[in-house]
Structure formats: structure tokens, C-alpha cells
């Protein structure tokens, strides 16, 4: 029977190393199956998060051969199996144990974003063309792979000043909601630090839901920040229009 070597990170807190496990291959096997096989037969205490195993919940995020991936959507036969398959926990977040990391920072950032606030007296009618754009953002399954790969968080450690791609997507879904009345643009500039993003697009590359994070969420939001903070003509225009409607 064909086999593969899984080189899985084992450790807790600040210590750890990669350990090799050999697993039998099954047709259509994904990396998560291989990890489960290790768990069931060789390392019962191997910590790994997963839920649906169908790419819908975003729990089994890890770095497979150095690339942030969902393990349930990474097929073994797409990997070079003549060498060990390296599986490591997300690098951007503190390690709990083995493949599980502490992602609670994300939940704290989320709390800073004001929720949906319908404009006063709205009529609850929306058309498909108005929701198309936002529905793309709402596909997000919160796997946090974009947060993991983003170099602003991963290498520069800007967790206090920067919200990360996931929360630009979330803010975009609220800002572009056709019936929402809140203004989150100052928040984007100050609290979420959108200026730290240098649009190098790794978030878009890793997104398992194929959300165009950079082109459809971050850049349009950057342009909204320009409207409010950097474009004198836009400011003037708003004043004139404001005077007209007032």
C-alpha cells in the first residue's frame, strides 16, 4: 500500500519540533485525513482543530509545506509525496499545542467594529445588484488564513495597530451594505490601520473562499479613506452637496 510521511509539528507554548509519522494513503485523501490517521493510530493526543471537513467552517487552518491552507481542502495527491509533507501551526498566532493556536485576538478585533445599523426609517427592500458585492464578503468562513499570511501581522507584529484582512472584509460587508447608516471610515484609518496594508495580496492568494480580498474589499476601502482624509476636491464636493441637501 502506498504511504506518505507526515512531518507534523509537536509542541506546546515556546517549545516543539517536527515529528515524522508514516500513514497509508487512501484514494481522495486530504491532509486532514492523514492527520486523523496519525491521531487514531500513533499520537492520540495530537492537538488539531477541525469541524466540518468540507471546507465550510474554517477550523482546520495550518501551514502545509509552508503554505497556509485548510487541511480538509488540501488533497494528498496534489502534494509531492516523495518528500515528507510538513504541517505546522499558523505562525502568526501564539501556539497552544501542536497544530492548535490561540486565535482569540481576532475575536477581540471583531468587537471593535460597530455592527450593522439600519438607516432610520429604511424600507426593507434590497435588490440583487446591491447585495452581490456584499455577499462575496459574507462568504468568509473565518479560517484566519489571511490573517496568518499577512506580513503586517506575521512579520511586523502590528496586532495593536492593524486589524488584518479578515476585518477589512468584515468592515467592507457593513460599509457597502445598501441599508447600513454607520460610518466606519475613521475606524478603518485609525483603529484598524488600513494604511499599514501595502496591498501585496497574499491574503487574496490564500483565501479558500476565493474572496477577492484586496481588489474588492481593501482597495475600495482605501479609496473611501482617501475620500474622507486625503482628497481635498472630494471634501469640497461633499461640502457643496451637503449645503445643497441641507
Amino acid at each position, binding site marked *: 500500500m502506498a504511504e506518505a510521511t507526515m512531518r507534523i509539528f*509537536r*509542541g*506546546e507554548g*515556546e*517549545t*516543539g*519540533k517536527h515529528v515524522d509519522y508514516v500513514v497509508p494513503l487512501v484514494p481522495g485523501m486530504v491532509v486532514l485525513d492523514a492527520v486523523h490517521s496519525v491521531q487514531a493510530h500513533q499520537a492520540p*493526543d495530537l492537538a488539531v482543530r477541525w469541524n466540518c471537513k468540507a471546507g465550510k467552517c474554517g477550523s482546520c487552518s495550518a*501551514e502545509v*509545506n*509552508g*503554505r*497556509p491552507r485548510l487541511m480538509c481542502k488540501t488533497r494528498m495527491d496534489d502534494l*509531492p509525496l516523495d*518528500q515528507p509533507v*510538513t504541517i*505546522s501551526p499558523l*505562525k502568526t498566532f501564539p*501556539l497552544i499545542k501542536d497544530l492548535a493556536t490561540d486565535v482569540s485576538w481576532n475575536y477581540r478585533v471583531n468587537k471593535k467594529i460597530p455592527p450593522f445599523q439600519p438607516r432610520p426609517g429604511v424600507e426593507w427592500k434590497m*435588490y440583487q*445588484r*446591491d447585495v452581490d458585492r456584499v455577499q462575496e464578503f459574507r462568504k468568509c468562513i473565518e479560517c484566519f488564513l489571511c490573517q496568518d*499570511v499577512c*506580513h*503586517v501581522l*506575521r*512579520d*511586523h507584529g*502590528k496586532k495593536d495597530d492593524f486589524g488584518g484582512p479578515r476585518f477589512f472584509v468584515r468592515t467592507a460587508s457593513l*460599509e*457597502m*451594505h*445598501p*441599508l*447600513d447608516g454607520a460610518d466606519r471610515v475613521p475606524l478603518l484609518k485609525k483603529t484598524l*490601520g488600513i*494604511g*499599514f*496594508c*501595502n*496591498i*501585496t*495580496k*497574499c491574503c487574496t*492568494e*490564500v483565501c479558500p473562499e476565493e474572496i477577492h480580498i*484586496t*481588489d474588492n474589499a481593501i*482597495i*475600495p476601502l*482605501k*479609496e*473611501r*479613506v*482617501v*475620500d474622507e*482624509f*486625503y*482628497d481635498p476636491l472630494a471634501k469640497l464636493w461633499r461640502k457643496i452637496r451637503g449645503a445643497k441637501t441641507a
Partner: protein
Amino acid sequence: MAQTATPTPNSIASMPEMRRPRTERHDAWWLENWPFVIVFSIFAVYATWRAVWPHEATLYWSDPYLSPFYSPLIDPQHHWLPRLISPAILILWGPLGFRMTCYYYRKAYYRGYFADPAACAVSEKGHKRYCGETSFPFILQNVHRYFFYVAVFFLVVLWYDAIRAFFFPNGVGLGVGTVIMLVNVVLLTGYTFGCHAWRHLTGGGLDCFSCTASAQARHKLWQGVTRLNEHHMFWAWVSMISVGLTDLYIRLLAAGMLKDIRLL
């Protein structure tokens, strides 16, 4: 404490301090940036040479073709323009500024020239203070839309030039140069109007597309721009290469090193 009943962790204490390598990627990630770095560097060197070399400043025109580097033509005889400054310098800042603040080029040169990051999930060596686009000079990227306005001005001029390229000294016709200029301006148009800032201005800044009649019209426009924008990288590449080759072709004609072929 109840926790004292806990079995001790197995052999974790004996594990080494965790040290992750710069990257665990197995693929040839360092190759990703080379195409951009090479082509863009060639273009930059070529454009600089064309703009600053005094002799080059005479090779911009071969009737009825005007090089895009020199259009609109400003004081080529140097009546008031100092000898050291080529008319191309008065032109090139516009398109250059447009491209340097372009969202696609930003990605490409931050990665290719600044290695920030060199590739996804590859750590940056040497932790310098990182400010992204929050402080000088990169905070200037926010003026991209103004460079878009400038680029549109130049685009109008280049369309004029392309139409002008049908009118030969001996009447209306079509040369290889005409075709080249026409293709070039089409590619530049595709690049310019796929701009992210333009996409925002047409409709991206709206929250509701169906709320007013004007918003509905802007939505249509936005959809069109979005289609171009999805391939912004493609347009950025082909238009950069085409503008360089168009200039080169006209330069070679002007220097007498090549003869234009009349097709009609």
C-alpha cells in the same frame, strides 16, 4: 488543587525551543518576482536613457508618428526649455506617477524591489520599522486618483496622435507605425480605465446601486470598469511593454535605422 492529579505532559519538556525557519515553502518562491523585476528594470533604464540622453531628445518624430514619450510636444527646439532638460521629462512624470501609485505596481514593486514581503509566508529578513503606507513617502500613494486625472489627459493626447498617424505628408494612409500607435493607445486605454481609483469614482463609493436613477447608471459604468479592473495586471504589463516598443519603433524610424512600411 484538582489539577495536581494531572498526568505530566509526555516528554514536552525535553523538546527544543521552537525555531521556525524563514519559510517552510518547498516551491521556488524566489522565482515569483523575477519577471517583473527584469522587465520593469529594462523599461526603467530604457525610459531614463530616452529621457535624459541629449542626443535622444532629437529622435521623437517621424512624420506622421510622434513618440508617446514626447507627446504633447513641448518646446523641442529649446526656445525656452534649458538644453539639459529633454521635453520627455516634462511628459513622463505623469504616466510614471500614475504607474508608481497604481495598486498593481505597488504590489509588484513592494514585493520585487523591497522584498516586503518577498513572497507569501516568507519572512522578511532584518526587522526594520514598518510603516506601510501610513507615513512618508508611501502615504503619497493616496494621491493615485489625481494621477489618474493626469493620465486621462495624456490618453486624450495619445488618441489624437494615433488618429494623426493616419495623415501622411502625401495623404491619408496606413503604415505599420499607425497600427502600432493605435494598438498602443488601445492598450493604454484598457489600463487607464481599469484603474482601482476610477472604479471607486464610478460607483465603488456608492452603497446602494438601485436607490437613485444616477446610481443605476453609475452601477452600469462600475460593472464595465470592474471587468477591466479584474485584469488590471494584464493591462499594466501589456501597456507598459507596448508604450516602450512604440517609442522604440519611432525612435528607430527617426534615426533612419528602420523604414516604415506603408500598408495602404
